[in-house]
């Protein structure tokens, strides 16, 4: 079963549109949703959680159509962390816990308190006095304290220092040790996604450019560094993006289509995405 499935989803806002989005997150997997600001990542997450209604298409979460009345119950199984915590600023962590205990049927106060201790979050300090790292840790503590099967994280690690980010990524990694747990995580910090995710979905201008296994992407693409004069020797169908400098060129290529005469370096996910975006801009 797929934890999330989107079929031909369209949503238009006039000057921006999500177009024909087909996407699936297999159960037990971690998928990174990557794209520049305004690419449609947050809109996609709102569509998945039915906080926005699509113009057309179907979306199911944990096997349930998100437009059906049954989806209300499925929300119990989904932990949400948005780019900010979005709790009223005059609440403290203890009050947030009290509100959530009446929100989620499976709320576990002991687990929540455990996370507060683990994250060094003072229970009576007002939320407005929290640092960004503390804010996001509180949101994550809430998301993990009602036994979710699916975590949806929208820019949950952006703006955090590397130490906190690493701590949080470790926590997500722990969460997916249970094969029934899945994560959809949007970010524009590609290195975080590369560290954690099994799948990468790249959203650009409201369109899904690819959704593939991280290792398959690394196997499919490579980088050729060559002189500008050698560019013509590369088969046109193999070239996905070119970066030229006075000293030569770096080319993102499909490995299978390039002869062994060229030395092909390993491409990381950030390279692949940057080349694809730049390639489109230069086209």
């Amino acid at each position: 079963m797929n934890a999330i499935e989107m079929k031909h989803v369209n949503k238009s806002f006039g000057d921006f549109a999500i177009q024909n989005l087909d996407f699936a997150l297999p159960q037990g997997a971690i998928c990174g949703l990557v794209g520049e600001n305004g690419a449609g990542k947050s809109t996609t997450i709102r569509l998945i959680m039915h906080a926005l209604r699509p113009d057309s298409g179907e979306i199911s979460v944990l096997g349930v159509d998100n437009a059906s009345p049954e989806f209300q119950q499925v929300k119990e199984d989904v932990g949400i962390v948005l780019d900010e915590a979005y709790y009223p600023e005059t609440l403290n962590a203890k009050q947030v816990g009290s509100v959530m205990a009446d929100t989620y049927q499976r709320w576990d106060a002991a687990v929540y308190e455990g996370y507060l201790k683990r994250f060094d979050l003072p229970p009576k300090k007002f939320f407005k006095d929290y640092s960004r790292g503390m804010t996001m840790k509180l949101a994550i503590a809430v998301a993990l304290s009602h036994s979710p099967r699916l975590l949806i994280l929208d820019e949950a690690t952006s703006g955090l220092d590397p130490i906190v980010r690493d701590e949080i990524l470790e926590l997500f990694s722990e969460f997916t040790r249970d094969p029934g747990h899945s994560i959809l995580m949007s970010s524009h910090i590609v290195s975080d996604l590369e560290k954690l995710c099994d799948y990468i979905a790249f959203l650009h201008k409201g369109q899904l450019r690819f959704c593939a296994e991280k290792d398959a992407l690394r196997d499919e693409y490579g980088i050729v560094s060559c002189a500008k004069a050698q560019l013509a020797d590369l088969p046109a169908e193999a070239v996905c993006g070119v970066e030229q400098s006075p000293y030569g060129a770096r080319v993102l290529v499909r490995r299978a289509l390039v002869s062994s005469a060229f030395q092909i370096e390993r491409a990381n996910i950030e390279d692949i995405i940057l080349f694809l975006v730049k390639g489109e801009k230069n086209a």
Partner: protein
Amino acid sequence: MKALLKKDIFVLIRQMRMFLVMIVVFSVLPGMNMSIFAIVYCGMLPYTAMAYDERSKWTQLAAMMPYTPGDIVLSKYALGWLAVGFATALSAVANLILGHFIPSGYDSSLSGMLPSFCIGLIMIAVTLPPMFRFGVEKGRMFFILLIVVLACGGAGLVQGVVGSDEEVPAALNAFISLGVPALAVVLTAVSIPLSVAMYKRQKYA
């Protein structure tokens, strides 16, 4: 809904201490006008809670949590009803106590309490649907307009019915004691589904 109500109460108690003190003071001051003022003040608490929700972007998070649109809308009505009920009860108790200490000329009867409570409910019922549709900033304009219309209309009605004679006619009395509560019930019954529809429309806009 209990969670949402609890959240609003936590927020209001912390943010609105002075406001709440004023409500208590107006509730216990002698005279029906002060009680009505306190009750109307309480009827405004749902907008304040909504303004805090908007400021913290709580509404965006709540839309993804296991709250139904009905929960979200009803929690604001319940907050208003509780606040209006609290101010009414406080005024009633204060009225009874003051009646014992102020020897003559003080009307300690509770006859005005029910209409005052109902005016609070009417205010909530009429103003919440536009708040859910347009947000608190624009919705507040509607509230101000309503207050002006009610004040002018009420004064005109009393002037027209009572005229120069100081005696309040039986018809007006009947309207105040029966018509106002009936109007509150009808408007509330219409207002809640309308607010749910407005909330959904705004949410999916």
